Each structure stands twice: as C-alpha cells, then as structure tokens.
C-alpha cells in the first residue's frame, strides 16, 4: 500500500521524519517495501486558466485560449482527448517556453495555425504519476493564473507498506496512523467526520430506502457451514447540485502520490475516503436509482448478465451479492427469485456487484449532479468468492475480503458527503442506516497465560495499557483480562491474538532467547531412521564417485512417451509451460535429461534420490546413471564403461551398506521397455525385488540425444534392511573344488549359482565364476561356465565330507538336463 508521508503526518503531527520510519514500521510488522522521494513539478510549470476551448477544424486538436497571469493571454494546441470542450475557468498545468522536460526544451511553435505557447501537460509528462489520462485538469480558482505549480504541489515521500492479509485495519492512512500512534504513544488527529446527519442516532430516515438481504446463505464448499450474512450494515446519503469536473488539486495530488489515477470529483472523493478511512464507497447517479430505493440482494438467476462501469460483462448468480435499484422487481431473496424467475427482467436494475464494482447503470457521468453515496459492510467470504470467480480484483474488494471495520459505514458516507459539499454540492441532512453489524466479541485471557506463551515477563498492567492504547476496552481483575477489541480489529478473536499484540507493542526486540527443554514422547522414538538411511545412501553413492543431481519433478506426456515411462496420471490443472504439464512417473527420464547437460563424450556418473508419482501412488526412488568410460584413457589404457563396471558399482554400494544384492535376468515382456532387451535385470536387495538395472534401449537414447551406451538403475526407497547377527569367522581352512557346468546360453549364471547354493547346503561358502566359454567342443547354443566352489566348516574338511556334496551337485546339474565338462 502506497501513501504519502505528509498525509500520515496530517493525522500524526508528531510523527518522526520519513527516513526514520522504516525500523519503526518493521517492528510493528508493517515492513516498508520502499520509500520513494517524489519531487515537486519542476520550475517553469505554471497553472493557467482556460478561457476558451475550440476544436481546430480538420484536425484532432483543440485550441485552448489561456490566462497565464503575469505571462499574459496565450494559446496552445492540444491533442489530449480531455481538452475537448473544457469549461472556461478550468486550470491546466502549463509547461512554459524555455523549460526543459525529459531532455526536451519547450518553446513556441506554430501548430495547425495556432501559436502554441509551451505545452499543457499530463501527470506522466510531469513525472508525477504513472498513468497518462490526458491533461492534468484542476477546478476553476485553484490558484491565481501563472502560479508556479511546485508552490501548490509539494514534494513528498511515498511510503510503500507491505500489509499482511490479517491487517485489514491498516489498509488506510487512518489505520496506519492508529497503529503508529499506539506504538509511539503519539497524538492522533482524526480526519474530518463530515456533516453529521440530522437524524443521527435513528435509522432509515434518509432520502433513500434500503433493504438488506435476509441472513442465512450457506455456501456448499464452506466446511464451517456458517450462515453468510451478505450485508449487515448499509449507509446511504445523497448530495445534489454537484458540478462534476476535476477534483481539487490537493486531492488529486494525494491520490496521485498513492498511485491512483484522478478521474473526476465524484469518483475521486470516493477513492480518497477509501484511502483515508479504509471504507470503500460506491457513488451512483441518483437518476438511475429508481424510486430512490436500493435493494441489496443475491443475484436473481443463474448467469444473470451484469455490465460494469468499465464496460465488462459478468455472469452473476444467486450466490453473488448485487446492488439493485427500486425498479419493480418483486423479489429480494434467492428463493423468491427462483420462484418468480420467469417474470423478472434480468440485469436491468443492477447498480453494481456489491463491494466489487459499480454497474454501467448508475454510473457517474460528466453531467451527474445528484448522487447516492453507498457506504456499506459486506460479507468478506461472499465477496471474495464472487471476485475470484468473476476475475474482478478491485481496491474495494481487496479491502472487503480482508475485513472492513463493520461500524465504519456511516462515517464513510458522511466523509464523502463532506468532500462533495466542499466542492459545491448540497448534502441532504438525512442518512439512511440499516443493518446490525457484527463486531469482534469479548476475549477472556490471563496475564500469566500470555506470559507463558511469550516467555516474556510483561506485567498484566502493561498488557492492559498496551491493549487500551490499541483501542480495546479492557477490564482487568487481578491477572484476568476481559478485552473487547475495537471494531476495526476483526482479526482479534482469541487470547493468542492478544499475546501477539502485547508482544508487538512491547517490542519483539525484547524477546529473550531460551531453548525448549522437553523429553519427546515414546511414539517419536525412531522417527529419524528413514532420514538417516537416506543420508547414508546419498553419501555412499557420492563416495562411489557419483555426483548427486536434483531435477524437476515435472514432466509431460511427450517426455514420458519418449522415455517409454508410464503415462503421467498426476496432471496439473494449471500448467505454466507445455513441457511441465504433469508429474513424473519414473526417475530415470530426469536422469536422462540431466545426462544431456554434460559435454559430448564426457563421463557421466550421476544419481538422484527423489519422488515419483505413478498410478500406484507417490513413491521415493533412487536412480543411478553411467555413461562413457569408468576411467577414460590417458597415458594409461581406459577402464571402459560396461554393464559389468556399472553392476560392480552397485555391488560395491551394497557391500558398503552391508546389503546383499542380486540381479536376476529379465527376458521378453518382463524387460522394462526403456531397456535393452538383452541387458536388463531385476534388482534384488536383501532378498527383495526393489527395481531394475540395465542398459538404455538405443531407441530411447536417440530420443534424448544420447549417443553411446547408457547404463541405468532405479530402485524403490526405503531399501529393505536385513536381520543382523555377529558371525564369529571360522578359522578352519577352506576346501575348494572347481566345476564347469555346460548349459544352454539362455540359462543365466544367476540361475546356475542359485541351484548350486540351494543344493550344497551350509558347507558352501562362496561360488565364483572364473571362466565363461562358448565354442568347440561345446555344442552350439550352449556354454560352459566354470565356477570355484569354496567350502568351509567348523573344522578342517575332509574329502569324505566334501565329495558327497559334489556328487549331489553334479546330480542336480544333470537333473536339469545340463552337463559337466571334464577336465
């Protein structure tokens, strides 16, 4: 929220200098996003009164005859749309000849036969505001013609305050002033209250009759099933005989500094009050408020078209709160609306979408003289829902959805009326005020409760004093506090809110530092185990020589198809880019992309631990990828990257983690489609299948632009553990036997070894292959695998013990239809 320092200073005469405010506001939880020094208009810009405005025939230009005071009577030609038909007396900001602005010196020129003496400027041209809405225009009599503008439009500092969603109360100059006054113990000067209504205290006696919707709409999605009140406070006041036109210079200056664009007197007065008090108001042309009646009602039917004052069309419905005029519409509740829907002409009498935007009907025009001021309190939840659905974000609804002071409505109406009266309007003495607003309820707390939560030793009396300064009504009885927050602090609801306010005004900087002393409940014991295992795996992989990567978890159908991964099922409703439309279903496509970040021919050894989102549910995976040589060639020969080298890394990893690892040959349909059909295995960790290992299918490699072999594995986490028991190593010497098994090539070594281990029993310590041979005299389609079997027992083994085992093994081999190769 932007606001000029001097406006704040008007309410807080003893406010410290602008440069000192940053740390003060930060301590209040209102950090400054910035503070900008906005200079006054440069010298050479003066105010000039229009004496005549006439179109220049055959052009888009307007000839303005000007009274420039000491500079005499001058003329200019202007192409600004709002120069057309200017009333005599209206004042413009004139850049006098000889003035340099934006690197350009203005002079006297002939334009379409008109001597153009300098230039009438827009706010943007004078570096006063961002919006270029045509010429800056001021009411007649703003200043004597020829007055240098910088003497009436002073330099200022603009504070840009970051306001969190809970602090609706500081979304105004008054609100910020109130908080600063409470913190710094400053005197607060309230802004002018406006003309007090003659009927002050009684209700419903203004010129406008207002009816509110009955309470009781429940929104289907709202889990609290709370009755939404719609509108619980509505003030209406009328002002007539207004001459609409530019608003006063001082008002335009403040609006401009606050980042708003001046429009005209009536609209500016409404915006000014919103910035000053935080109360949004809507001003309607009274000619459109049929029968001087306003009906606040939910939309009459689904898809009712409402045209807003900017020309946009919106489809409102029975859950959207609308402002209707008194056109004969015989309904004011949703139920009635549906019952009589056929008879109602939709959209016609809609003055606006409550609290969000006014309608085209009721809109203030240049010739508007009589207005109806609406100053109301609407349901924040209903308004937020409507604004979100219609995509209408206005300054008004921004405040309503955060929470406007429910009691502020009459003050807002009176203040607007006062500003219009000051500009020549006639305010009707009566004020219509209906509704019973809901205000913050009483909060019970104790000083010790608050001290315990904060850990700060603040006396209850100081708490009482702080809360009182914030506008609360506090009654203290011993340690007990009964607190009624002020109507503008709708965020204060529970005693913890009081604790925050006490700490905030006492000062967070006084918060001491201690450490919690607690003994965790037994249910938490062991919660760290998965994390420790993950950290251990991560370090073991890095220790093997692999670089960890962290990749995006997003994917797309196209990418999943390229990688031959499962089609993504977890899909984004609102993707940012076409390549990130869903969540990945496997880890390896991410690794393939990361491998692509490496230079051509470079060795790649990377791993990732991350989450995937397949149809079976979110899961955690570890993936490892290797490309290129394990050790590239230098003056020494390379160690080529092969499946064997890659599997060796896996075995080394398992050994360092104390796990047993096994790879079972996958064939045919069991091979993951991303893998080479002949180089693929099931990864078995401590006896459980956890994933796969293999070489990337060349077709997939080509899709990812990867040339040469790529080896991959992917396994589910957490990896299964094993039962652990200390084994005292046997000191007895080993006995060994060699055996060459001849089997069809389709029989994997793993299958042979599994058979041998199963048959040999406890004496067999290890099986290691030492020769694999294909060729004569081994028959075609078969191969010989020679293994060394190492046996060990409690004591030295004798042939009498080993030989029967060997006979058993040979028998088992033959039973498979395999052979034994003689020595």
């Amino acid at each position, binding site marked *: 929220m932007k606001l000029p320092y001097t406006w704040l200073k008007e309410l807080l005469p003893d406010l410290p200098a602008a440069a000192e405010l940053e740390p003060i506001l930060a301590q209040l*939880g209102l950090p400054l996003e910035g503070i900008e020094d906005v200079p006054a208009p440069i010298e050479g810009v003066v105010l000039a009164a229009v004496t005549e405005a006439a179109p220049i025939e055959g052009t888009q230009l307007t000839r303005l005859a000007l009274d420039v005071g000491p500079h005499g009577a001058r003329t200019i030609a202007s192409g600004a749309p709002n120069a057309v038909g200017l009333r005599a007396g209206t004042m413009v900001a004139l850049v006098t000849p000889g003035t340099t602005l934006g690197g350009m010196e203005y002079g006297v020129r002939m334009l379409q036969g008109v001597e153009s003496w300098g230039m009438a400027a827009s706010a943007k041209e004078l570096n006063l505001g961002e919006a270029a809405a045509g010429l800056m225009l001021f009411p007649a009599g703003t200043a004597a013609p020829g007055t240098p503008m910088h003497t009436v439009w002073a330099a200022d500092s603009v504070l840009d305050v970051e306001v969190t*969603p809970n602090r609706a109360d500081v979304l105004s100059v008054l609100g910020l002033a109130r908080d600063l006054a409470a913190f710094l113990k400053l005197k607060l000067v309230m802004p002018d209250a406006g003309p007090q209504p003659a009927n002050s205290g009684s209700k419903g006696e203004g010129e406008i009759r207002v009816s509110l919707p009955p309470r009781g709409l429940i929104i289907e999605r*709202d*889990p609290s099933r709370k009755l939404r009140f719609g509108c619980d406070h509505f003030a209406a006041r009328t002002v007539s005989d207004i001459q609409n036109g530019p608003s006063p210079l001082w008002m335009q200056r403040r609006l401009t500094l606050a980042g708003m664009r001046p429009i005209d007197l009536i609209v500016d007065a409404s915006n000014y009050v919103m910035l000053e008090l935080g109360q949004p108001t809507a001003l309607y042309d009274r000619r459109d408020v049929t029968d001087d009646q306003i009906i606040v009602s939910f939309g009459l039917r689904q898809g009712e078209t409402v045209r807003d004052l900017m020309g946009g069309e919106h489809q409102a419905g029975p859950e959207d709160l609308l402002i209707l005029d008194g056109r004969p519409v015989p309904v004011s509740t949703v139920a009635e609306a549906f019952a009589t829907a056929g008879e109602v002409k939709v959209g016609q009498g809609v003055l606006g979408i409550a609290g969000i935007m006014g309608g085209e009907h009721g809109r203030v025009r240049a010739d508007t003289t009589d207005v109806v001021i609406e100053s109301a309190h609407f349901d*924040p939840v209903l308004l937020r*829902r409507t604004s979100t659905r219609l995509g209408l974000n206005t300054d008004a609804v921004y405040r309503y959805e955060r929470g406007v002071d429910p009691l502020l409505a009459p003050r807002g109406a009176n203040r607007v009326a006062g500003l219009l009266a000051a500009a020549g309007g006639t305010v009707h003495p009566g004020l219509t005020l209906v509704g019973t607003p809901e205000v913050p309820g009483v909060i019970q707390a104790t000083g010790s409760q608050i001290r*315990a*939560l*904060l*850990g*700060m030793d603040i006396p209850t009396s100081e708490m009482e004093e702080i809360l009182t300064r914030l506008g609360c009504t506090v009654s203290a009885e011993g340690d007990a506090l009964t607190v009624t927050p002020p109507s503008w602090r709708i965020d204060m609801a529970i005693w913890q809110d009081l*604790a*925050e306010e006490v*700490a905030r005004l006492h000062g*967070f*900087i006084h*918060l001491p*530092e*201690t*450490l*919690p002393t*607690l003994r*965790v*409940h037994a*249910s*938490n014991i062991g*919660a*760290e185990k998965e*994390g*420790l295992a993950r*950290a251990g795996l991560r370090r073991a992989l*890095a*220790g093997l*020589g692999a*670089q960890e*990567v*962290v990749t*995006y*978890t*997003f994917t797309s159908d196209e990418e999943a198809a390229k990688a031959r991964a499962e089609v993504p099922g*977890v*899909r984004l*409703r*609102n*993707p*940012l880019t076409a390549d*990130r439309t869903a*969540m990945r279903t496997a880890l390896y496509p991410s690794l393939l992309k*990361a491998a692509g*970040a490496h230079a051509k021919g*470079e*060795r*790649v*050894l990377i791993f990732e631990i991350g*989450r995937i989102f397949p149809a079976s549910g*979110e899961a955690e995976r570890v993936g490892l990828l290797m490309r290129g040589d*394990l*050790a590239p060639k*230098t*003056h020494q020969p390379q160690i080529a990257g092969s499946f064997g080298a890659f599997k060796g890394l896996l075995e080394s990893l398992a050994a360092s983690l104390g796990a047993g690892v096994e790879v079972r040959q996958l064939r045919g349909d069991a091979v993951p489609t991303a893998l080479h059909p002949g180089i693929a295995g099931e990864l078995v960790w401590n006896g459980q299948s956890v994933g796969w290992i293999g070489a990337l299918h060349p077709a997939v490699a080509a899709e990812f632009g990867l040339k040469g072999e790529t080896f991959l594995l992917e396994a589910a986490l957490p990896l299964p553990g094993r039962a652990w028991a200390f084994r005292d190593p046997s000191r007895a010497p080993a006995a060994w036997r060699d055996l060459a098994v001849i089997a069809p090539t389709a029989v994997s070594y793993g299958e042979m070894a599994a058979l041998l281990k199963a048959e040999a029993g406890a004496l067999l310590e290890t099986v290691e292959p030492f020769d694999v041979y294909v060729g004569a005299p081994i028959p075609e389609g078969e191969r010989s695998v020679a293994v060394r079997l190492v046996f060990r027992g409690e004591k030295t083994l004798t042939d009498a013990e080993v030989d029967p085992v060997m006979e058993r093994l040979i028998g088992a081999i033959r039973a498979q239809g395999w052979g034994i190769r003689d020595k």
Partner: protein
Amino acid sequence: MTDQSLQDQALQAIAAAPDLDALQAVKTRYVGKSGLVTKELGTLGKLPPEERKARGAEINAVRGAIEAALTEREALLKQAALDAKLASEAIDVTLPGLPLPAGGLHPINRVYDDLTAIYERMGYAVIEGPEVEDEHHNFEALNVPWYHPARDLQDTFWLEDGRLLRTHTSPMQIRYMVNHEPALKVVVRGKVYRYEATDATHEAMFHQLEGLVVGDGISMTDLKGTIAEMARGLYGPTARVRFQPSYYPFVEPGADFAVWWENPRGESKWLELGGCGMIHPNVFKAVDDLREAEGRERVYEGKTGFAFGLGPERIAMLKYGIPDIRYFYANDPKVIGQFRGELG
C-alpha cells in the same frame, strides 16, 4: 704360498668379485669345505703338538680377515643390487593417475545437511513427506480456509483430480502430529511448489526446511533461542537473530526472522531467512479432529509449540554467491560439481 700371499690373493679376489655369484665362488675357493684356507687348517694335525697352537692361530687370522672381507663385500653388492632394482622400478610420479570418478552431493543437500546437523545436535528427528497433498492438509487444517485472502500468498499448482502440489512443507506438521504424540521435535525437508513464473530468484519448484516443536510450556523465547542456535551454527558465533511481527495463518503470534551475517567476502547485513511463530490453536484442533476420525485420542489441546520455515536455496545463494536460482536444477556438472569439501 705364504699365509700373507694367500690372504692378499683372497682379498684381491673378493674386491674384484663383480656380483654376488662371483663372490660366492671366491668364498668357496678360500673358505669353503675344501677351500684353500680350510685345507691349510687340515694340515695342522701333521704338526708337532707344540707348534700346532701357534700355526692354528696364524691360519685362523687369515681366515678371519677373508671372512670379514667377504661379509663386507656381500653387504656392498647386495645394496648395489637393490639400488639397481629400485632404479629400474622408478616411475614418473608427475604423470596423472587413473582418472576415477569423484562424486559429490548437490548444493541443496549440502545446505540441508548443514542445517539438519545443527538440529540433530539439538535432538530433532529429520523427516520427509509427500509432495502431492490434499487441500485439507495444505490449507484447511493449517487455518487457511478456502475463502481466506492468505491463499493469495501461495499461488498453487492444482491437480486435475482436485489435489495439489504442496505449497509449503507445513502439511507435514499435520501429518506428523496426527501420527505421533507430544512432546515432539522434528525438522522436515523436501520440495515445495508455487505457481510462479521462473526467473533469477523465483522457481516453480524449490525446497523448504520446516521445524516443529510441541510440548508443555513451549514459549516464543524457546523459538527465538532455537533460531539463534541455528544462526550461530550456520554463520558462526557472531550471528545474531532479529524477530519482526508477521503473519502466517497457522501461527499466532507470528514473526519473520533475520540473521545478522558477518559476510567474510562482502557486506555484512541482515538476511531475511524465513518465517516462524507459535502454533495456532486451530491447527492443534484440526490435528485432534483428524486423530479422532482415525479413532485416536485427542492429545494436543492445551499444548503449545512453535514452527518455523526457511528456504535452503536462499541460504545457498547468499552463502555461496550463486547468482541465479535456476542453476540448482540445470545440473550443469561445472556448477554443481563445485560444492565439495569445506565450503566456509
């Protein structure tokens, strides 16, 4: 031959022996079983007893001199042989070794590990949780109802099935509390997502570290002390912590914390690192409601606790001078491969 000439001759042969084999031959010739000196000793028996002793001493003196020379020469030749062998084995050690791969951790996990090490020292368990969440855990149970403007602070990736990508690690507060009883101390690490266009400081995917402590009588000073402990662990003993009021719907009171960093490589300054606060009673209530729905006891009413959250990317960028958040997930080996060893 006289004793002297025998000795001279032997010593000459010893000195001339070029290698250990030649020396062995000399040894055999003079002091071997049938060597010349040995034979001479054999003649002692033929001498009269009164001469024997003197003659024996003379021959043994010759033998002693020869054996001493042999030992000396043998040692010399052995050393020479070893020197020659070693010389032949010499290697140019300036040639590079076998270029084995060298692994390392990703910088985000380096920062995470630094952070979690501090918390583990203080007795916290490190946990992780799901990245796809439901609206209830991500928002409703954290006191962010669907209509609340605070939702605007966290632009959300919604999923077609109505779920969402978690916008913060805070849903793990709910999940952990539902499954465990107080008192408890945990930190959560993991990815979070925001519907945000990517630029040098914004990413649609980033990481958070979330802390959660619940017990009896946990106070806001405990929170500040805990953050200060982390700050000193991260930035050294001169680090100080500053709290300023802020708003997060799931805490009350809420604060933003900044750490005073004595930057060894640049300007020292306050670093805005994250948000924190005392857990809102509505969060405890939502947890107890979920527990009750699962048939478990309500155990959180009347407890107090704190939570905090911060982003490791921001810490890594500030601490290591990484200029662009997109560097983290581009996985350029020249970038992420730098974060090895002591990073200071």
